[in-house]
C-alpha cells in the first residue's frame, strides 16, 4: 500500500454509511474511500461489505445533513462535496406510503421517495391506471381529531406494496385493467374499489367530517400541497406516512370514459365530497339534482358494475350495440319498429282527475282513461270509450312532477301542460303503486315525445318502482344507509345543511323530482353529467389562498382558477377584481421576502405575499395552470415535465 504512492495515502478517509435494511440498531458501515471515488463505486463497496445477496437496484444514498439524494452514480464524492463528516443512509428509493384516495379508501403502496413529487405522482397514477397524472398531486391530510373511543378509527388499508415496480413502469392492460391487478382475486377486488363508485355515505359520516365554514377555512387546505419539484424525503415525508392523492388542477383534459375508468370514478368521488361537505357552494335546486344523480349512479353501479370494469373489447361491443340502438331509435326505419308503431300499445284504466286552476269546489273525479301515443284521453266510463273522448290531452312538451306519499298511499301525477293560453295544470290520481308506475312512466316518455312503444318504457317503470321502494324504507326510520340501494337514506345524498332543513321523507319527493330527468342515464352518462354540472357551478375550480396585497393593510383572499385569478374582499365577501392568464405578461417570485409579483398587459402590476400557504404553492398553482393550458396544443401523449418545472419552479422569470 505504501508503495503505491503518496497520493493515495493523502486522499483515503473513512466514510460511514447507515444501511437501512440492517435495522435501526445496527451501527453504520465504515468504508475507506478516496475523494475521487464515484458514488457508484461507494455503493459497490458497501454492498460487498454487507455480504447480503439481494436486489439492491432500487437502493440509493441519502445525505442526511444536506437533505439530498446522491443519484448521479458517476459523480465523485468530491463533486458532491462529501467529506468524512457526512452521514449517509443507504436505502430504497421506493418506500411504502399510505395513500388516501378521493373516494375515501386508503391504499398502501410503494411510492418513489427520491424523484420530484411530480414524478412520484406519475408513478402512483400509472400503478392505479389514472391518465393525466399532471392534474393530480399529493397533500398532507388534515389531522384527525383523536376521539375518546378509538376503536372506530382503524380504517382498513388495502395493500399494493407487493406490486413489482417493473410492472408499473411498463403497464400492460389485461381484461381492461393493469396486469398487476389481474394477479389475484384480492387485487382484482382492490381494482374494483378504485373503479366503481362508493355507495352513498351514511348521513352521520357526512356530518362528522370537517366542513370548511368560510372562504378562509377553504384557503387553509391549500397550504398542505407538497412541492412538486422536490422529493418526498426532502419534504419530511417518512416511510408509511399518510398522504392524500387529489385532483389539484381543475382542468380535466381529454376525458375518455373508455380509458378513464379509475380517473372518472375518483374525479366523481372528489366532486361528490366537495358538494356534500359544501366545499363548493350550490343552490338548493342544484343540490337536489346532485342528490338525484348520486342516487342514480349508486343504483346503476350496483346493478351493472360490469359496465365500468369490463374489458376494452366488451366496451367496443357495448358501444356498438348502443349506437345501433340509437340508430334504430333515431331513424325508426326498421321494419320491426314500423310494425311496433302500427300496433302501438296503450294503457286503459280508471283514474281520478283534478284541475286545480278551474274555479270549482269539486274534487277528484273518476273517468276511464286511455293512454295512446303521446296523448291521454278520457271517457265517462269504459263502456263509452269507443266514442269521442270528453277531452284529449297531448303531453308532448309538458312538465311531469310526482307527488307521492307512500305512507298515505297518495300517488299523484302532476302535469303542467303548455297551451297557447298558458300552462294547464292537471292532476292525475292513481290507486296504487303499480298503476302509478305505469302511468307515470308513460307520462314521462310522452313529455319527451316518445310513445309507450319506446324501448325505455320498461326501465322507466323499473326506476319509478325502485324510487318508491326508497321512500318506503325511509318512512321507517333507521340509520345504517350505505348497505343496499333499497335502504338509501336521502340524507346521504345532500349536505348536512339540508339534514337540518328537511326530514328525509320531505327530501325524497324533491330528489325524486330532479331524478326523473336523469333516470334514463347510463352509469357513464350520469357520472359525466354530475361532473358537468359541478364544472358549471360559478365557484368551480377556485383554489383559495389568503394573501396580503402590496400596500394593503388587511388580509384578502386570492382565488386561483384554471383561467384567471380573482381578488376577494373578505369584508364584503365579493370578487373585487379579476385578472385573466390570457393577459399575463410575466410573473416573478422573490423568495427572500416571499412575495409574488405578476404583470398583466396594459401595465397592470400586482404583488402580494402569501399568508396561508407557502409562496411556492401559489407560484406552482399559477404556473401549473399555464402548463395545463399548453397541453391542447401539442398532440403527443408524453408529458413535457421540463416545461412543468420551468413554469412552476420559480427559478427563472418567464
Amino acid at each position, binding site marked *: 500500500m505504501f508503495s503505491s504512492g503518496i497520493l493515495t495515502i493523502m486522499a483515503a478517509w473513512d466514510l460511514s454509511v447507515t444501511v437501512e435494511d440492517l435495522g435501526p440498531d445496527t451501527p453504520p458501515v465504515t468504508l475507506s474511500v478516496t475523494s475521487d471515488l464515484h458514488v457508484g463505486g461507494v455503493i459497490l463497496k458497501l454492498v460487498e461489505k454487507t455480504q447480503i445477496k439481494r436486489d439492491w437496484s432500487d437502493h440509493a444514498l441519502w445525505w442526511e445533513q444536506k437533505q439530498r439524494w446522491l443519484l448521479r452514480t458517476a459523480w465523485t464524492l468530491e463533486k458532491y462535496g462529501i467529506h468524512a463528516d457526512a452521514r449517509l443512509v443507504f436505502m430504497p428509493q421506493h418506500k411504502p406510503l399510505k395513500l388516501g384516495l378521493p373516494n375515501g379508501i386508503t391504499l398502501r403502496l410503494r411510492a418513489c421517495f427520491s424523484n420530484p413529487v411530480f414524478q412520484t405522482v406519475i408513478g402512483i397514477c400509472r400503478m392505479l391506471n389514472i391518465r393525466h397524472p399532471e392534474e393530480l398531486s399529493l397533500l398532507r391530510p388534515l389531522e384527525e381529531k383523536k376521539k375518546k373511543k378509538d376503536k372506530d378509527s382503524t380504517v382498513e388499508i388495502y395493500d399494493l406494496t407487493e406490486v413489482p415496480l417493473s410492472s408499473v413502469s411498463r403497464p400492460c392492460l389485461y381484461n381492461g385493467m393493469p396486469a398487476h391487478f389481474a394477479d389475484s382475486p384480492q387485487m382484482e377486488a382492490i381494482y374494483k374499489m378504485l373503479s366503481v363508485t362508493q355507495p352513498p355515505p351514511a348521513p352521520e359520516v357526512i356530518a362528522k367530517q370537517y366542513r370548511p365554514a368560510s372562504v378562509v377555512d377553504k384557503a387553509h387546505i391549500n397550504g398542505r400541497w407538497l412541492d412538486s419539484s422536490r422529493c418526498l424525503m426532502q419534504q419530511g415525508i417518512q416511510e408509511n406516512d399518510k398522504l392524500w392523492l387529489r385532483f389539484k388542477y381543475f*382542468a*380535466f383534459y381529454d*376525458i375518455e370514459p373508455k380509458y378513464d375508468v379509475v380517473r372518472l370514478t375518483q374525479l366523481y368521488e372528489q366532486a361528490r365530497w366537495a358538494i356534500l361537505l359544501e366545499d363548493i*357552494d*350550490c*343552490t*338548493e*335546486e*342544484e*343540490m337536489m*339534482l346532485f342528490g338525484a344523480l348520486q342516487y342514480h349512479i349508486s343504483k346503476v353501479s350496483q346493478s351493472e358494475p360490469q359496465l365500468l370494469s369490463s374489458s376494452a373489447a366488451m366496451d367496443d361491443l357495448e358501444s356498438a350495440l348502443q349506437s345501433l340502438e340509437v340508430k334504430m331509435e333515431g331513424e*325508426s*326505419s326498421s*321494419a320491426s319498429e*314500423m*310494425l311496433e308503431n*302500427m*300496433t302501438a300499445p296503450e294503457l286503459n284504466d280508471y283514474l281520478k282527475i283534478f284541475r286545480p286552476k278551474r274555479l270549482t269546489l269539486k274534487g277528484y273525479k273518476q273517468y276511464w282513461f286511455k293512454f295512446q301515443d303521446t296523448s291521454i284521453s278520457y271517457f265517462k266510463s269504459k263502456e263509452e270509450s269507443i266514442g269521442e273522448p270528453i277531452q284529449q290531452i297531448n303531453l308532448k*312538451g309538458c*312538465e311531469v312532477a310526482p307527488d307521492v306519499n307512500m305512507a298515505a298511499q297518495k300517488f299523484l301525477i302532476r302535469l303542467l301542460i*303548455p*297551451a*297557447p*293560453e*298558458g*300552462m294547464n295544470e292537471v292532476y292525475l290520481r292513481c290507486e296504487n303503486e303499480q298503476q302509478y308506475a305505469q302511468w307515470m312512466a308513460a307520462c314521462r316518455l310522452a313529455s319527451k315525445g316518445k310513445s309507450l312503444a319506446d324501448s325505455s318504457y320498461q326501465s322507466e317503470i323499473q326506476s319509478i318502482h325502485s324510487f318508491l321502494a326508497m321512500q318506503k324504507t325511509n318512512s321507517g326510520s333507521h340509520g345504517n344507509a350505505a348497505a343496499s340501494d333499497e335502504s338509501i337514506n336521502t340524507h346521504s345524498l345532500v349536505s348536512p*345543511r339540508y339534514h337540518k332543513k328537511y326530514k328525509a321523507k320531505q327530501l325524497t319527493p324533491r330528489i325524486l323530482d330532479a331524478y326523473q330527468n336523469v333516470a334514463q342515464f347510463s352509469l357513464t352518462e350520469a357520472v359525466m353529467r354530475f*361532473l*358537468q*354540472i359541478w*364544472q*358549471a*357551478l*360559478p*365557484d*368551480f375550480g377556485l383554489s383559495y389562498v389568503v394573501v396580503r396585497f402590496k400596500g394593503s393593510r388587511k388580509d384578502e383572499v386570492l382565488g386561483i382558477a384554471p*383561467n384567471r385569478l380573482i381578488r376577494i374582499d373578505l369584508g364584503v*365577501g365579493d370578487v373585487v377584481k*379579476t385578472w*385573466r392568464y*390570457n393577459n399575463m405578461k410575466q410573473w416573478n417570485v422573490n423568495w427572500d421576502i416571499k412575495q409574488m409579483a405578476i404583470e398583466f398587459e396594459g401595465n397592470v402590476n400586482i404583488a402580494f405575499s402569501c399568508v396561508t400557504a407557502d409562496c411556492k404553492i401559489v407560484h406552482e398553482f399559477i404556473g401549473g395552470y399555464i402548463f395545463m393550458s399548453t397541453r*391542447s396544443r401539442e398532440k403527443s401523449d408524453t408529458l413535457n415535465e421540463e416545461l412543468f418545472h420551468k413554469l412552476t419552479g420559480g427559478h427563472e422569470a418567464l
Partner: protein
Amino acid sequence: IINNHYEEIDAPSAEEDSDKEDQDLDKMFGAWLGELDKLTQSLDDGRPEQSPQQKAPLRQETNMANFSYRFSIYNINEALNQGENVDLDALMADLCSIEQELSTINTKPNSAGGMARLGLTDTKVHTHTHACTQISVYNFCCCCHCVCVQEEQAAKLKAENIRVALEKIKEAQVKKLVIRVHLSDESSKTMMVDERQTVRQVLDSLLEKSHCGYSPDWSLVETINELQMERIFEDHENLVENLLNWTRDSQNRLMFTERIEKYALFKNPQNYLLGRKETCEMAERNKEALLEECFGGSSVSVPEMEGVLWLKEDGKKSWKKRYFLLRASGIYYVPKGKAKASRDLVCFLQLDHVNVYHGQDYKSKYKAPTDYCMVLKHPQIQKKSQYIKYLCCDDVRTLQQWINSIRIAKYGKQLYINFQEAMRRTEAAYDWSSLSSSSIKSGSSSSSLPESQSNHSSQSDSGVSEMTSAGHTRSQSVVSSIFSDAWRRGTQGEV
C-alpha cells in the same frame, strides 16, 4: 337530386379505367347535364296532370297528420288570396314532387292495420315514379352481367321491396308545411318546408333562392304580434316544430332578415363573456383564445351575469326591482334581506322549457321602465298568461348580455357549433359563387325537399341487387372526388 346523378353517370365510368377519367371529364359533364334534362322533362310531364286544388285531396287521403294538412291548406288559401307576390311556380314544383312520391303508394296507408298495409304495398312498389323507373332501367342495363340466381334474387327483391315500401310509408308521413316568409322589404316568399329541416337548412335554401349575398347574420325571426315579442330561431332548431306551436288564427310572422345580434356574441366575445360593464376592443387572436376557452372544453361555463332587473308583477302593470343571477341551472334571485350566497338563492325559473324573447315597445304596452325588455316563456304559449315572465333592463347593453348569456346557458356548445357552421357557409359561398351556374341551379330547385327524392330513388336501384349497390357507393365517392377536383381547378383558373 345531385346524388342520383352521381350514381347514374358513375355506373359506366366506374367500369372504365380510372386513367381515362380526367380526359373524360367533359364528356361526363355533358352526360350528366343530358341526364338532368331528361329528368326535368319527366318532371314537367307530370306537372300539368293535376292542379293544386286536385292535389290537396290526395294528400288528405294519405296518413299525414291532419293538423299539418289543415295548416298547409289554410296557408295556401291565404297565399292564393294574396295573389300577386306568391311564387306559385316554386310551390307547384314542390307539390309535384310530393305527389310523385305519394303515387308510388297507390293505396292509402290508413288505419286498416299494419299487416294489411304491408301486404298491399308489397305488390305496389313496382310502380315507380317516372324518375325512378328511368333510373332503375338505366342501372339494369349496365349491371345485367352480374345477375345472380333467379330465385335468390327474387327473394332478395321481395325483402328489399318491403323495406322500400316501409321507407315510403315513412316518407309519406313526413309533415310538410307551406310557409310564408316575410322579407325586410315588406315582400314575402312562399315555400315548403319539411318537418326534418333545421333552421340552418331553410336559411340555406332561402339564401340560394334570393341571391341576397351570404352572411352569417341572416336569420329566421319569429315575431309574435299579439305579445309584441320576437326571437331569432337558433340554427340547429327544427323549424316546423316551432311553427306548429302557432295557433291557427295566428298573427305571428316569420321574418327572413339580417340580424347582427345573432352572432355578435362570437364576433366580440369580450363584451359578453367577461362580465365587463363597458364595451371594448380585443385582438382577433385573443378573441379566438377566449372562445376556445369558453366553448372548447368539456363543459361550457355560463357567463357570470347578475344585477338588478325589473320584474313585471303577475297580472299588473307594475314593475319591481330584484337582484337576479344567472347560473347554468337557471335564473335565480336574491330574496329580500338575504346576502347572495348560493344556498339562499331562490330559483326564478329553469331554462329547459322556456325560450328567451325580445319584448318590443313595452314602455307603452306594459308601462315598463325602459324599452329594453326580455320575455321568458314556453314556446307553446301564444297568448297573455301568468306563465310568461317579463324582465326589464336599464340599457340595451345589459339586455343583450342577458339574452346572450341565457342562450349560452340553454344551448351551450351548440351555439358555437352553429356559428362555426354559419361561418363555413359564408366562406364556401365565395367558392361556389365562381362555379358554372347551371349545375348548381338544378340542385337548388329541389333543395326545399332535402334528400326525399334522392333517397328513394337510390332505394329503388339498390333494390335491383345487392352487388350493384355496393359498387355504387364506391364509385360514387370516386366521381365526387373527380368533381371536386374539377371545381377546384375551375376556381383556381378564375383566380
